[in-house]
C-alpha cells in the first residue's frame, strides 16, 4: 500500500470516528435548550431531571468529540502538508474562527452545564445550556464553510509564484456556492440524529415500563422535533442534490450511477448495485424522475460520466451506495416520524410496542445516514481535494481546470513514509476500538441508571446525602421507592 492510500484510509477512519460525536452534540444541545427552557417556564421538576439526565450523556459524548477532534486539527499538517500549504491562506481563517468563536464557548459553558447545577442560578444555568448549543452550531458553521470551499471554491485566486490559493474576498469564501446549502443539510442531519437518539432511549424505557413520565414527555418532545426536521430534510436534500448537480455534475453522475448520458430524460434508481466493469446499474429505476428533480422539466438529460475526462471521474461504487443509503434512510425517517405523530394524535402511540421497538433501533439508521452523507460528499469529490473550475463546452462535454488533486496534497514522501502512516493507523484502530467499547459501556451504564427522581433544585452546594433522602421519599406508581427500585447500586458517584 502506498502513502496516498494509507493516508486516505487514515483520514477516512479518523474523521468518521470523530463524526460519530458532533452531530449528537448539536442535536441533543438544541433539545436540552428546549427542555430546560420548559423547566424555567413551567417549574415542572420533571423537566429538570430530564435536562440533567441528557446533560450527563451529552458530557460523555462531548469528551469523545473533543478527544477525537484534536486529531483532525493536527492531521492536515501531519499527513497533508502540501494541502496545508496550498489552502492555508484560505482555509486557515475559517479554522481560526471556529477555534475562537466556537470551541471556547462550548468548552467553557459545558463546565457550567455539567458541574454548575448547584453553583449558579437556574437562569444562568439555562444561559450556559444555550451557549453550549450555540457553540456546537458555530463549530458546524465554520467547519462546513471550510469544507464547502473545498467543494465549490470561491473568493480566492491562485498565486502562481507560491503555487497556493490566496484569499481575495472573505465573504465570498464564507458564502461560497454550496456553504449555506450544505450547512442547512448538515444541521438538519444532526437535529434528526439528536431526536432519534432521545427517542431511542425513551422508547426503551417505555417498553421496559420505567421512568413513566420522564420517558413519555421526552419521547413526545423528540418526536415532534424529529418529525419537523425530517420533513425539512426532504426539502434540504433536494436543494443539496441540485447544488451538486449544478456545481459538481460529475459527482452527481457518480451518485446516480449515470455512466452514459442518455438521449432523453434521465430516470433515477431507487435502489441498485453499480457494476463499474460493465458500466451498468442493476436496480429499480423510476423513469423521468432525475430529470424532473434536477431541472423541473421532463426532457433535459442529466450529464453522465462520459461527458468528463477519464482522469477527473470519481469512483462510482462507494458514492452511489452511500448516497442511496442516505436517501433511503432520510425517507424512512420522515415516514416513521409521521407515523409516530399520527398515533400520538390518536392517543395510542405508547401502546404500539412494535413501533417503540423500531424507534429503539432507528437511531442506528440516523448515525449511518450522517456518515453516509459525508462519505458520498467526500469520495464523490475525488480525485480532487480542492475542486477545479467546471465549464460546459458547446458540445455538451465538460472541462475541468485547476484545483488540487488529492495525491498532490500529501506530505513530502521523503518525510512521511508509508510505515509511519501504517503504524499510526494500527494505533488509531486499537485506541478507537477501545474508546468505542468504553463509550458504549459508559452510555449503557447511564441508560440503565436512568434519570434521577425529579426534585426541586437546591441552591446550596450539596453534600450528596440530601439527594438520596429526597429520592428515597419519592414513591413511584408500583408503590416501591425509586431509590430501591432502580437505583440499587446508587452511590453519589455511580453516574
Amino acid at each position: 500500500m502506498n502513502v496516498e492510500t494509507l493516508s486516505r484510509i487514515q483520514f477516512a477512519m479518523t474523521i468518521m470516528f470523530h463524526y460519530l460525536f458532533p452531530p449528537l452534540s448539536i442535536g441533543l444541545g438544541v433539545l436540552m435548550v428546549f427542555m430546560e427552557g420548559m423547566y424555567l417556564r413551567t417549574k415542572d421538576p420533571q423537566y429538570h431531571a430530564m435536562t440533567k439526565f441528557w446533560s450527563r450523556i451529552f458530557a460523555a459524548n462531548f469528551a469523545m468529540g473533543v478527544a477525537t477532534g484534536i486529531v483532525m486539527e493536527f492531521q492536515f499538517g501531519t499527513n497533508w502538508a502540501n494541502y496545508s500549504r496550498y489552502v492555508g491562506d484560505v482555509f486557515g481563517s475559517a479554522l481560526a474562527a471556529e477555534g475562537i468563536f466556537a470551541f471556547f464557548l462550548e468548552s467553557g459553558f459545558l463546565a457550567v452545564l455539567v458541574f454548575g447545577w448547584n453553583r449558579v442560578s437556574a437562569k444562568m444555568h439555562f444561559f450556559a445550556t444555550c451557549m453550549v448549543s450555540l457553540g456546537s452550531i458555530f463549530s458546524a458553521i465554520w467547519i462546513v464553510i471550510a469544507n464547502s470551499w473545498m467543494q465549490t471554491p470561491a473568493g480566492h485566486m491562485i498565486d502562481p509564484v507560491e503555487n497556493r490559493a490566496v484569499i481575495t474576498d472573505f465573504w465570498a469564501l464564507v458564502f461560497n456556492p454550496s456553504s449555506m446549502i450544505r450547512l442547512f443539510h448538515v444541521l438538519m442531519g444532526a437535529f434528526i440524529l439528536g431526536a432519534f437518539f432521545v427517542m431511542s432511549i425513551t422508547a426503551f424505557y417505555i417498553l421496559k415500563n420505567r421512568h413513566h413520565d420522564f420517558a413519555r414527555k421526552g419521547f413526545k418532545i423528540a418526536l415532534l422535533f424529529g418529525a419537523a426536521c425530517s420533513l425539512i430534510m426532504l426539502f434540504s436534500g433536494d436543494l443539496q442534490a441540485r447544488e451538486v448537480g449544478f456545481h459538481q455534475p460529475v459527482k452527481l453522475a457518480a451518485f446516480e450511477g449515470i455512466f452514459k448520458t442518455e438521449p432523453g430524460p434521465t430516470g433515477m434508481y431507487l435502489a441498485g448495485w453499480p457494476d463499474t466493469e460493465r458500466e451498468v446499474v442493476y436496480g429499480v429505476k423510476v423513469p423521468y424522475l432525475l430529470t424532473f428533480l434536477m431541472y423541473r422539466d421532463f426532457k433535459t438529460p442529466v450529464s453522465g460520466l462520459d461527458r468528463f475526462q477519464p482522469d477527473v471521474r470519481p469512483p462510482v461504487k462507494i458514492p452511489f451506495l452511500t448516497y442511496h443509503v442516505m436517501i433511503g434512510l432520510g425517507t424512512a425517517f420522515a415516514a416513521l416520524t409521521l407515523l409516530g405523530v399520527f398515533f400520538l394524535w390518536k392517543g395510542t402511540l405508547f401502546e404500539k410496542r412494535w413501533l417503540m421497538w423500531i424507534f429503539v433501533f432507528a437511531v442506528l439508521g440516523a448515525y449511518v445516514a450522517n456518515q453516509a452523507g459525508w462519505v458520498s460528499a467526500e469520495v464523490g469529490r475525488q480525485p480532487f481535494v480542492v475542486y477545479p473550475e467546471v465549464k460546459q463546452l458547446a458540445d455538451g462535454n465538460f472541462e475541468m481546470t485547476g484545483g488540487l488533486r488529492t495525491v498532490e496534497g500529501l506530505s513530502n514522501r521523503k518525510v512521511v513514509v508509508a510505515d509511519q502512516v501504517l503504524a499510526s493507523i494500527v494505533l488509531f484502530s486499537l485506541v478507537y476500538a477501545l474508546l468505542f467499547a468504553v463509550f458504549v459501556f459508559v452510555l449503557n451504564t447511564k441508560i440503565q441508571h436512568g434519570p434521577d427522581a425529579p426534585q426541586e433544585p437546591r441552591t446550596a452546594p450539596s453534600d450528596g446525602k440530601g439527594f438520596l433522602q429526597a429520592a428515597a421519599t419519592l414513591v413511584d406508581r408500583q408503590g416501591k421507592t425509586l431509590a430501591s427500585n432502580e437505583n440499587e447500586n446508587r452511590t453519589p458517584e455511580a453516574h
Partner: protein
Amino acid sequence: MQPTTLQLLWFVLLGVLLAGYAILDGFDLGVGILHPLARDDRERRIMMNSIGPLWDGNEVWLVVFGGALFAAFPKAYAAAFSGLYLAFMLLLFCLIFRGVSMEFRSKRPEKPWRRFWDFSFFASSTLATFLFGVAVGNSMHGLPLGPDGDFTDTVRLVQMLHPFPVCVGLFAVCAFALHGAVYLNLKTEGELHNRIRRWMWTCFWCFLAMYAVVSVYAILEIPRATASFRNYPWAWIIVILNILAIANIPRSLYLDRPLRAFLTSACVIAAFTFLFGLALFPNLIVSSVSPDNDLSISRAASTEKTLGIMATIAAMGIPFVLAYTAVIYWVFRGKVVLHEDSY
C-alpha cells in the same frame, strides 16, 4: 526580509496562545503528573475534580494555537507537523487518553476500571508534557529543514531524543508538576492539603535543578538560541523578571499566599514561553542543515489580507473569550467539594 507589522503581530499572538496553553493546561497536566501520589479514591477524585470543569477549556488553547499556526504560517505548520510525524501522533494519543480518562474514571465503581483510568490519566499527562518539552528542545536545537521547506529526511523518534531536548522534556515535567502542585494548594484542604505542600517543595527543588541544567546547556551548546540576547539587549528584562518570579514562588509559599504563588508560577511559565519565542526569532523553524534554510516569519506567513482578517476575528473574539473564561473560573472558585455531579 523584515517581517511586516501584521506578521509580527501574529508571531506575538502565537506566543500568547502558547503561553496561555502552557499556563492553563500546564496546571491540569501537572495535576495528572502528581495523580499517583494521592492515597485513596476520595483523594484521587478530589484531584481530578479540581480540574474537572476547566481542563477542556484549557485544551482549546492548544487547538486554537494549532489553527492559528495553520492559518498564519501554513508553511511552518506543514513542515513541522509532517516532519515530526510520530511525535505528534504520540502526543495525540496522550491527549485523547487524558480527556477520556477523566470523563470515564468515576463512572464505574469497579477497582480495576478505576486503576486503569488512573494510570492512563497519569501516563498520558506525563508523556504529553515530556513531548511538549522535547518539541521545544528540538525547535531550539534546530530541525533538519532542507532548502525546499520540508525536512530532508524522515525523523525517527529516537533521533528526537538528543540530550538537550530530553533535558527540556524533564524540565517541562518538573515545571508543570510544580505548577499543578501550586494549583492543588489552592483547591484542597485538610490532610491532603498538608501533603500537597510537601510535594510542592519537592517539585520546586527539582524544577530549580532542571532550570539550572537547561539554562547552562543552552548557553554553552546552542549559540543560536541565545543570539537574540545579543541583538536585543532589552530581552534580558524577561530573564531578570523570570528569575525574580521563580524566587517569588517559595516566598509566597512561605508567607502562605496560595493565590499569589499560583499567579507567580503562571508568570514563570509565561516567561519561559516568551524566552522560547525569542530564541526562535526571527524564525519559526531553525534549520540544523544550513541557516539559509531557516523558515523565517516572513517566508512562512500567509498573505497580509488573511492576517488582517484573522486579526479582525481575534479582536472580535478575544474579549468574549476572556470574559467567559473569567466567569467560569469565578464560578468554580474555592476548594473542591465532591457532589453528585462530580467526576
